[in-house]
């Protein structure tokens, strides 16, 4: 094997395997270029940019669907693309369909509300698509560079998007805050990434997990004088977490969220709260799996290997010699009969310290985030600001199943997959709920020039359709049946129960209490909209046909999925079934 053969095999691998699976992103790239090129030529610039963008989005959506149709998730096998830079599995595919569908809905919304006007439409669509490509990379990151690159690619265009209304002071302030905090946390995250790469000697997540097994945290901690290396690891992990927490708007890195949401326009808020958050959650899952799970490791194999390796580890640690490479899966053949003993033995894998660290950090942050978001949403007068806090709270809810999944990895991988599927399901519902809410806010802003909750009083009389849709969405955000939000929350709670343990119970209780708290401020808006009498100065609210259709198209699924959640829940479950293997 010489270098030439390596290079050739890599090239053929790229062309035959990786590029076909990278189609949706490529379509978006091409769309960006086409948008720019058509602007240059006198004849071509008559083509409305919206048409090109919509076409590109739809083609990308079509390209992102699994080969055997929308229900065919289970057949997708985990693969590494581009020699390990990206990972492609059913979760990636699911999130990508989600993001592409969102992209199509988003550009339609931007067109309907007039945010992407004719002259600068190309810029707007290019930025949105560029950001979406970054999110796709986040969702499939398998390498520390693609992790950072994805975050940067998703963030930097969205800084511009949040300041897209150039002349408005608030808009420019939102962009400034977002950019400064975002760039700062990205820098801290990069430093953490450098520490992790340095201590583990690799930047490829699965290899890093293997190195972590060799690293033998428990042994190093027991040894006493080597705790500094574990400290570097923890420090690197926490700094990486800073960047993730910023993208997730988790406490204590949430402070940008309300300001940016209030300053940016409502359409962009929808973008930030749905797409950006879903990508960040997917990245959180990737990081959790990347560091907490070695490919090929199963609880059974770990349980079988536990005793011999433990002694090897201790001996090796005592002799201060790095333990030999152990491929755990090779050492112990998997037998079905061991499953119960593995369950009873709880999490004893060599990565269990990493997992418990991850679970504790994510779990506690999620509880605090959730509680903070819901408490701060009280007393907000601006609807966008209130929804910003609601977004923070929902980020907390959606982080919980990720913690549960990582907690379950060492014991029951099927249940862990289910936990991730509950997150995916909630994210899918969240797309309709939040994009719907922000679309309504954008349409109302266009017709009544206000985003104050008080100005929505008596909306039911002025525009019953919008009022009903808004009410339905808010009820769903609380999580009351028969809306989709209820199903999503129920599944999340279920995964917490499945994971068990004091921390999970604490999270469950906190989530339950939070639902009760959130009831008050969501229903207060519903009351304003449906019951309060309109102010004297109220003007009629007129939504065009397309706007009404758009609002309906987003609101109806919220109800429909609440009543018939089966198909989408099955897709999510099928997508996560093969996640750990």
């Amino acid at each position, binding site marked *: 094997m*010489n*270098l*030439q*053969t390596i*290079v*050739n095999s890599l*090239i053929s691998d790229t062309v035959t395997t990786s590029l076909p699976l990278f189609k949706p992103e490529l379509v978006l790239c091409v769309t960006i270029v086409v948008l720019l090129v058509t602007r240059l030529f006198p004849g071509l610039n008559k083509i409305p940019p919206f048409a090109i963008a919509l076409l590109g989005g739809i083609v990308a959506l079509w390209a992102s669907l699994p080969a055997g149709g929308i229900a065919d998730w289970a057949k997708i096998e985990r693969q590494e693309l581009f020699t390990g830079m990206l990972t492609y599995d059913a979760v990636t595919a699911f999130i990508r369909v989600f993001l592409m569908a969102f992209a199509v809905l988003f550009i339609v919304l931007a067109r309907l509300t007039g945010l992407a006007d004719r002259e600068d439409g190309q810029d707007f669509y290019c930025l949105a698509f560029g950001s979406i490509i970054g999110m796709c990379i986040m969702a499939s990151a398998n390498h520390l560079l693609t992790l950072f690159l994805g975050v940067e690619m998703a963030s930097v265009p969205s800084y511009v998007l949040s300041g897209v209304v150039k002349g408005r002071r608030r808009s420019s302030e939102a962009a400034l805050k977002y950019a400064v905090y975002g760039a700062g946390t990205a820098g801290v995250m990069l430093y953490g990434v450098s520490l992790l790469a340095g201590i583990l000697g690799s930047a490829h997540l699965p290899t890093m997990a293997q190195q972590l097994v060799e690293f033998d945290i428990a042994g190093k901690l027991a040894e006493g004088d080597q705790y500094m290396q574990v400290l570097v690891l923890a420090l690197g992990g926490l700094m990486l977490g800073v960047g993730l927490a910023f993208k997730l708007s988790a406490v204590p890195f949430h402070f940008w969220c309300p300001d940016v949401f209030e300053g940016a326009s409502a359409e962009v808020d929808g973008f930030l709260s749905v797409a950006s958050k879903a990508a960040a959650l997917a990245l959180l899952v990737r990081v959790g799996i990347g560091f907490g799970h070695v490919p090929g490791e199963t609880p059974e194999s770990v349980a079988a290997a536990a005793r011999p390796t433990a002694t090897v580890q201790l001996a090796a640690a005592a002799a201060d010699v790095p333990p030999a490479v152990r491929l755990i899966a090779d050492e112990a053949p998997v037998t079905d009969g061991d499953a119960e003993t593995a369950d009873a033995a709880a999490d004893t894998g060599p990565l269990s310290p990493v997992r418990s660290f991850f679970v504790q950090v994510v779990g506690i942050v999620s509880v605090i985030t959730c509680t903070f978001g819901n408490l701060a949403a009280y007393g907000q007068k601006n609807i966008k600001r209130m929804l910003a806090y609601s977004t923070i709270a929902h980020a907390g809810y959606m982080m919980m199943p990720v913690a549960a999944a990582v907690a379950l990895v060492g014991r029951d991988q099927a249940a862990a997959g289910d936990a991730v599927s509950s997150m995916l399901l909630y994210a899918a519902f969240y797309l309709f709920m939040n994009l719907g809410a922000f679309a309504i806010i954008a349409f109302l802003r266009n017709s009544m020039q206000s985003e104050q909750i008080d100005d929505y009083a008596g909306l039911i009389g002025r525009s019953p359709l919008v009022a009903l849709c808004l009410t339905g969405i808010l009820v769903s955000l609380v999580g009351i049946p028969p809306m989709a939000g209820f199903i999503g929350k129920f599944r999340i709670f279920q995964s917490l129960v499945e994971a068990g343990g004091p921390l999970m119970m604490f999270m469950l209780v906190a989530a339950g209490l939070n639902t009760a708290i959130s009831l008050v401020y969501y229903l207060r808006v519903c009351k304003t909209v449906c019951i309060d009498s309109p102010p004297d100065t109220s003007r009629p609210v007129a939504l065009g046909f397309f706007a009404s259709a758009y609002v309906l198209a987003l609101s109806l699924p919220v109800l429909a999925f609440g009543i018939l959640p089966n198909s989408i829940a099955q897709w999510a479950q099928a997508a996560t079934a093969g996640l750990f293997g």
Partner: protein
Amino acid sequence: MAEFLANYLPAWLAYMVAGAIHVGLIINLVAVGALVFIWLERKISGRIQDRLGPTRVGGKFGWLQTLADGLKLLTKEDLVPGGADKMLFRIAPYVSFCASIAAFLAIPFAGGDYPFIVQHVNTGVFFVLAVLGLEVFGVILAGYASASKWSLFGAMREAAQVVSYEVPLGLCAVVPVMLAGSLDLVVIGDVQQGWFTNWLIFHDPATFLIFWVYFTCATASVNRAPFDLAEAESELVAGFHTEYSGLRWSFFFMAEYGSMFSVSLLASILFLGGWNGPLPITEWLGLTAANGDIAWYIGQVLGVINVIGKAVAGVCVMMWIRWTLPRLRIDQVMATCLKYCTPLAAAFFLGAVAWQWSLPGRTFFGLLESPAELQSVSEGWSDATAAATDEDEPEASEDQTVSSEPSRKVAAAKLTGAAALQIASTNLQGGK
């Protein structure tokens, strides 16, 4: 040189002495170069305007005129404006001068196995371009620290201009790098051995054309007329150095002439055969390493004369341009860069690639066989493109791919900055 000295001195002292000698030579080169060039500029401008230029000091040609001027500058008072940021004002000329000198660290004056070079850097082309780009800081700091609006405008223009022109400049420099298969200036010079037909400028039509793009961009990036917007005396008094006097002012001038010299040196190494004369005279005379050290040394000195001669010719052409063409407006300067030079450079780059692809091993003149060194590179090239699994020659194809790819990204990254700068500067123009 350090190894040689180490025979007679303790090792640490040998290194220091060698370092001191190198630095001394370079400063000498820049200072004496500036001395000569300023005299030359006066003579050339005089002749172009049908005058004699300086005639009095130092005999018939007035060749001591610059020295007299230098002495006058030394005795002038070192003024610092009242509202100036004193520290930055004092430091700025030195920043410019240091950057200008530092570029010479990696420029070889003769090649072969023991090149005449201060520090052999294996990414020489990029190092020189990168360091040349740092000169702009001196100008910016001077412009800001002077607390004068003329200076500030001059500095802003310089910032926008220099950063923008580095994009096409880098793209042009990539072509010889690609053809020679190395970023090492010594290697690039050495592959052009033999007749002048082997010079990279005559390699193919695209390289011939891109040389002129390079020369235009080089003129602009060292801030010479018709691109000397930073000093534009008809509108900005004297631009960024309005407030400077005496020795500090002369440092700016030495930096300017030093940069002119270094971009011309770079042009002569990248395109004009470097230390290889138009005819392979050193070979005919047997001045090679095979015939003993002394012959080799004479050959090398001939090489030095060759490369410096070409560089001086380049500088003279810049002067000729200065006294021939009128100054452009700032927006014309930026348009020249972004609308013409960058696309042209990219197109010619592709042209050179196409030539290399379709006619490997051939040069421009009657489709001659290209020199052996270049051939090995082009063979590697076709290997890589055909994805042949040839076990013997992985090296050449690697080098080939190296050269073009990273620089493309540099160009892209610079373009981002440059365009933002340009937009900002147009805004400024509107706002003022």
